[in-house]
């Protein structure tokens, strides 16, 4: 399911126009992004948890060149499906 199909389905369910739905969706994404930027996690019942995790820096070695590289630390967004969603699979 790509983004277009997703928006269409969402519009159908909410009974709103595709244009309005797109605008609302952009608002939701903006809200979520803003929360993730503050390192807040988001927990959706029956769906899963979004969490911002900090990865420490580490040294990796390129096996073919034996070159050692220092990979900088970073913040990543992780998602863990809830058990109810897992059970449906």
């Amino acid at each position, binding site marked *: *399911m*790509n*983004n277009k*199909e*997703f928006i269409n*389905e*969402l519009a159908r*369910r*909410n009974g709103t126009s595709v244009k309005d739905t797109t*605008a*609302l*969706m*952009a*608002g*939701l*994404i*903006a*809200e*979520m*992004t*803003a*929360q*993730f*930027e*503050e*390192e*807040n*996690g*988001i*927990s*959706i*019942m*029956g*769906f*899963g948890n979004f969490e*911002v995790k900090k990865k*420490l*820096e580490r*040294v990796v070695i390129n096996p073919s060149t034996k*070159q*050692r*590289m*220092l*990979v*900088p*630390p*970073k*913040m*990543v*967004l*992780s*998602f863990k*499906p809830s058990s109810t*969603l*897992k059970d*449906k*699979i």
Partner: protein
Amino acid sequence: MAMDKLFLQDLADGLARRKSISKKDADAFVRNVFDIIGQNLLTDQLVKVKGLGTFKMITVDSRESINVNTGERITIDSHTKITFTPDTTLRDRVNRPFADFETVVLNDDTKTEDMEALTAPFLSASEKAEAKKEVKEEVKEEEPKAEPTPVVETETGTGTDARPEEALLPSEATKRTKTKTKTKTEEKKPEGKGGSCWKWFFWILLLLIVLAVVAYVLYEKGYLNLPQAEPVQETVVEQVEEPDTTAVEEVAEDSVEVQAEEAKEEKPVQNLEELIAQNPQFENGDYWIVGTKATHVIEKGDDFSKLVQKYYDDKTLVSYIIKYNHFKDPSYIYVGAEVKIPELVKRGE
């Protein structure tokens, strides 16, 4: 607000505020969003949402593994799992605090321990201050003190920073490795600031010049050190022309000191025995203590086992640190205390 856990309700409230719609509508909307994602994930195996990312169902084949507790061979059944890959824009926004960092290729001679084994600039200055005091007392005393300066040089050579540790993000060290020259000037600045430090500052300068010359003569490799050392020295001299004369006068007054310096430069390697004699030693140890490798300021959470791990990567050497610092009660270290890390030389070498 940071590190809070938010729920669907919070998202809906935020959305209602942003789009000025009723909370009820917003709530229904957000519920539908995740409902659709969840449902279509099951039917389509993949849901792409622009701005958020891609949810995917992946089939994992069955495989053999070993139970870590019992050592038994077990089979992990084939199963499906859900993965989420954030959109690049979202990923970059989340990672923005660290966006400036890049992956850096490490030189072969740069060890990770080196990056952390730092000497604070003020401390190295005071070390040399000690050195000077002792010059006036005795010629011999001076020789071991030749050690701190070369140490400083090699540290800068490998790109190690001499700023005090601030429980810094390790990646800052990365940045520093990239900007050796910058680091150098930063090191110099704090030394020059304090007006009372002028005197010491000149002695350090003098030592550096003499060392550079001697190094050049002694080692062919020393040529590599020179380009690094020279520019710094020159700029420093320019900055401080006036006090320079006073420094020269001082030198003239105590010609003994000059001789002492020359003497020490000429035989920096041969004085191992004297170094051994001057530092506290164990009768039956594996190593000789020959000087100060670094000075460590104790931070919260430090203990001796961490120190030895960090500086020597060998936990058996705790006793050397205790001996060198003359700790009567090793359990008594406190945050902010300065611990001298001894330079060790394997006996019989």
